[in-house]
């Protein structure tokens, strides 16, 4: 009897944690590499970054109001952590035919206008967003290189105040990267945040 209950509890837990992110990564999973087109036309893979200790992978776009509010903070994250071995890799997952403001040309223009210091990649087939389990923009997957593999160390929001970075008293991504750099345990490994649903092709 007790065993049955434990099993049911276990199933319930698995169900709850898996439900909204079908097929995507959970913290602790090994993340896949990719080969995506950057706004400069070059193809970018994580394996290109031999010296990197990990990556701040951000699924983001031009058009979502939340993505716009976080743009400067994404630039700041790259500036702060690139030198420490954790550069930002931004991936735009929206179907440009459903969201014209996210077309490759619009991405190029936005990257230039805002002075993105990081690659801004187009996930044209949306395969990477699906593989990672990105649900919305912006959506961060912090990866840490461990014995040659990229382990997911944090998934979620950048911080806890989209409207005003100065008033955010929980800087989830910064805290997580700081912990990785100091070889400490990442304090918060998963958060949720409101964002814009990714515009999936065929929907």
């Amino acid at each position, binding site marked *: 009897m007790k065993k049955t209950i434990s099993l049911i509890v276990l199933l319930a837990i698995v169900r*709850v944690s898996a*439900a*909204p*992110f079908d097929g995507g990564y959970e913290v602790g999973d090994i993340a896949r590499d990719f080969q995506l087109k950057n706004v400069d036309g070059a193809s970018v893979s994580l394996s290109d970054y031999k010296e990197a200790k990990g990556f701040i992978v951000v699924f983001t776009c031009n058009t*979502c*109001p939340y993505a716009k509010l976080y743009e400067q903070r994404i630039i700041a994250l790259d500036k702060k952590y690139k030198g420490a071995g954790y550069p930002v890799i931004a991936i735009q997952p929206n179907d440009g035919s459903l969201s014209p403001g996210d077309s490759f040309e619009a991405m190029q223009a936005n990257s230039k206008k805002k002075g993105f210091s990081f690659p801004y990649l187009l996930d044209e087939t949306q395969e990477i967003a699906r593989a990672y389990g990105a*649900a*919305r923009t912006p959506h961060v997957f912090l990866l840490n290189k461990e014995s040659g593999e990229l382990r997911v160390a944090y998934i*979620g*929001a950048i911080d*806890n*105040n*989209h*409207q*005003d970075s100065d*008033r*955010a008293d*929980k800087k989830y991504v910064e805290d997580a990267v700081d912990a990785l750099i100091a070889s400490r345990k990442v304090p918060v490994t998963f*958060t*949720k*945040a*409101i*964002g*814009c*649903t990714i515009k999936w092709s065929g929907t």
Partner: protein
Amino acid sequence: MRRTVVLLFFLFGAGATIAQEVEVIKYPQLDAIINAKEDGVKVINFWATWCKPCVEEIGYFEAANTQFRDKGVSVTLVSFDFGKDVEKKVQKFIDKNDLRSRVLVLDETDYNSFIDKVSPSWSGAIPATLIVNSKTGKKQFYEKTFKEGELSEVIEAFIN
């Protein structure tokens, strides 16, 4: 012209037929709405004026609000528009579309402090919809866009 406006005001202004005035709330007020025991069935839709799929399905919620009113169902539209956009965008949207459902703007920034309270299965994307039976405590949560006819089927099934 002015006379027509005044006349229209007298014809429609006094009754329940005017479009809604948006209210700005914090999460505890929303929590009270979700968990109030006396209010029948509540359909709570999370949306924003900048969210295209949300705007596209608003009409179904408006229709449901009228269709199911006599069955004790009320529709509340909870907007995630930013505080600065309340008048400029939300009220304008309400007026333009003549919304009759109750419209609230949730003025919160720390989403992780309440998302799981609405539903643990919510990833944080909108549109999302919570249907609650106040008396039984039964809840159903949808993180999706409804197609035409689908919302009324879901509500029909929920109340029967």
